[in-house]
């Protein structure tokens, strides 16, 4: 069959999602506005086949809106949504082929567990015998083989969570969407379910988008994390990337315990910088991005466990004052203050050497793996 040039070009545009390596779902400049306020975007996201991608951020950052746009529950104001290269932007949820697990599970209270899980299959007109087999198999996968005849209110929170997962998975969606599925569980169960969820996801190899505000969850479970803040993407990367090389002030502060100290870049060699944090105190740091030449302002990011506390005679930057000391048992957390009046934290093992240090005393600090973030990007 011969295709004319414009038709060919149009189909190529339509297949854009396919051109990017293995991108199952592509969000192309998605914007959501309510009246004149922009709630989201513009946001570009590419979801790879089989990965668990987490949307991480504080409440109101747009992560749930993004998820609802993907599920079709919210219509984006602008932009395009491509599922395996097909434009699904204006497709209603029933035709989208997405499995969504709600924060409160949203199980049908008047239906048994078996009926809840069978719901999506019935809507797809799957033959009865097949429904029975698939429901039973799904219940085994989520580890609840004997609850099919019970009602949702007869199950515990953790069990309901698994049923919600089973209900979303049984329809074999092209993408599984999880909207803070663990936040209604108690702390212990939450940790257990993280591993279990991840295990099921990997076993089935299902592409998953996971929304959470909990960075531990994000780090433990994800292949990639998208950090969001006030409707925009701050940073995309592996959990290690995000923790180790935050690109913005927000990323540094949101993820892990971080202390930020401002200073001027005085020397540069490749990625290695020397930053003056005031009163001539020089700190070596590594630039997280290009374009941080001599004379530019920089934010140094340190983590408490990466600062070594030094006392007289040891090799460190002297002149730090202990502002606060918190004894935590196996570790001691110090709040240190630079001569310029900037604070940072330092966590040391609870050994004799540090145990008697009191607020007000002068100590030194040695910074390890300090990161420099450009001020302009904060």
């Amino acid at each position: 069959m011969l295709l004319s040039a414009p038709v060919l070009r149009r189909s190529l545009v339509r297949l854009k999602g396919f051109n990017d390596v293995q991108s199952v779902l592509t969000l192309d400049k998605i914007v959501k506005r309510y009246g004149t306020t922009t709630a989201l975007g513009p946001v570009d996201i590419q979801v790879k086949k089989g990965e668990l991608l987490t949307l991480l951020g504080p409440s109101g950052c747009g992560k749930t809106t993004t998820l609802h746009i993907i599920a079709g529950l919210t219509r984006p104001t602008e932009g395009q949504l491509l599922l395996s290269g097909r434009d699904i932007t204006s497709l209603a949820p029933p035709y989208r082929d997405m499995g969504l697990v709600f924060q409160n599970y949203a199980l049908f209270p008047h239906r048994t567990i078996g009926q809840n899980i069978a719901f999506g299959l019935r809507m797809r007109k799957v033959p009865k015998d097949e429904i029975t087999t698939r429901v039973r198999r799904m219940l085994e996968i989520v580890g609840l083989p004997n609850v099919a005849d019970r009602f949702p209110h007869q199950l515990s929170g953790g069990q309901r969570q698994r049923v919600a997962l089973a209900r979303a998975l049984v329809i074999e969606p092209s993408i599984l969407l999880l909207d803070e599925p663990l936040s209604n569980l108690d702390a212990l169960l939450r940790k257990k379910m993280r591993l279990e969820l991840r295990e099921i996801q990997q076993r089935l190899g299902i592409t998953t988008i996971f929304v959470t505000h909990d960075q531990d969850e994000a780090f433990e479970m994800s292949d990639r994390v998208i950090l969001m803040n006030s409707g925009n993407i701050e940073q995309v990367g592996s959990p290690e990337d995000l923790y180790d090389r935050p690109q913005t002030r927000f990323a540094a502060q949101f993820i892990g315990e971080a202390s930020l100290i401002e200073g001027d870049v005085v020397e540069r060699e490749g990625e290695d910088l020397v930053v003056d944090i005031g009163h001539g105190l020089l700190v070596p740091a590594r630039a997280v991005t290009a374009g941080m030449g001599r004379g530019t302002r920089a934010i140094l990011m340190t983590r408490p466990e990466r600062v070594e506390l030094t006392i007289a005679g040891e090799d460190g930057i002297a002149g730090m004052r202990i502002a606060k000391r918190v004894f935590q048992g196996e570790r001691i957390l110090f709040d240190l203050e630079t001569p310029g009046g900037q604070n940072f934290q330092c966590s040391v093992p609870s050994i004799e050497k540090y145990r008697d240090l009191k607020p007000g005393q002068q100590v030194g600090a040695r910074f390890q793996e300090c990161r420099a973030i450009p001020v302009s990007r904060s």
Partner: protein
Amino acid sequence: MTQEKGHRSAPFAAALLAPVSILYLVFLIVPIGYFLAVSFLKYSPERLYLPELTTDNYRRLLSDGYYRQIIYDTFRISAIVTLFSLIFGYTLAYFLSRMKSAWRGILMFLIIAPLMTGVIVRTYGWIVLLGSDGLVNRLLIGLGLVSSPIGLLNTEPTVIVALVHIMLPYMVFPIFSSLVSQDPHLVPAASTLGARPLRTFFEVTLPLSRSGIVMGSALVFTLTAGSIVTPELLGGRNVTMLGQTIYQLILSTFNWPLGAAVAAILVVCQFSVISLYFRKMRRAY
């Protein structure tokens, strides 16, 4: 499920229940027991009733075509009124439950407002509208659709329309509350699982509002079956329901035993509707 919680406060709860229990006993149970007893006594034109046990009153009611027709009409009209109240009430309640809060308050008030005026006032309102010199007839004549006033009053359809109007709030509120108490995520959940809007309604929303439907229907049915003023004023001689019959037998004909028997039949039917409602509600989910 929740009953276990109340154990420790049982004596206190019982104390709170005392006043209303006494009220019900003195002003409901005792009078009902009294007329039930009277319904089994013999009628006497001079002394209201004679202390002589008989089932004649019931036998007469169930064999006399006049009374049988009234019993049949009452429950037929009540069923029709319940059905129409349900159709209009459900759509209204559904609409209310899905709308933005500011407008919802105003509309709720408009639905409650008629309850604040008496049933007689509302019934007279219908007479003003439907009388031979009423608004509807004037409009019909003005439009040239009819040449002389048509008889809208004293017909059964008019009684039914007015009763549906009067009973609507009793249907709307239980259904409304059963709709707004549903988890708002259930509908989107069903839709992501592949259910189109109409399917979602019949699979999820409607079955979960069953308690409201049963409650509203039980209320409307029993209230309609016991109505007096509306069928009397709008139905005239053409519509007679049990309530009017009791009124006539007790206060005009002074046949207390027969009136009591009619009342007993009405009360038994109403109770069976209510107990049906409670049986439905006990089914757990």
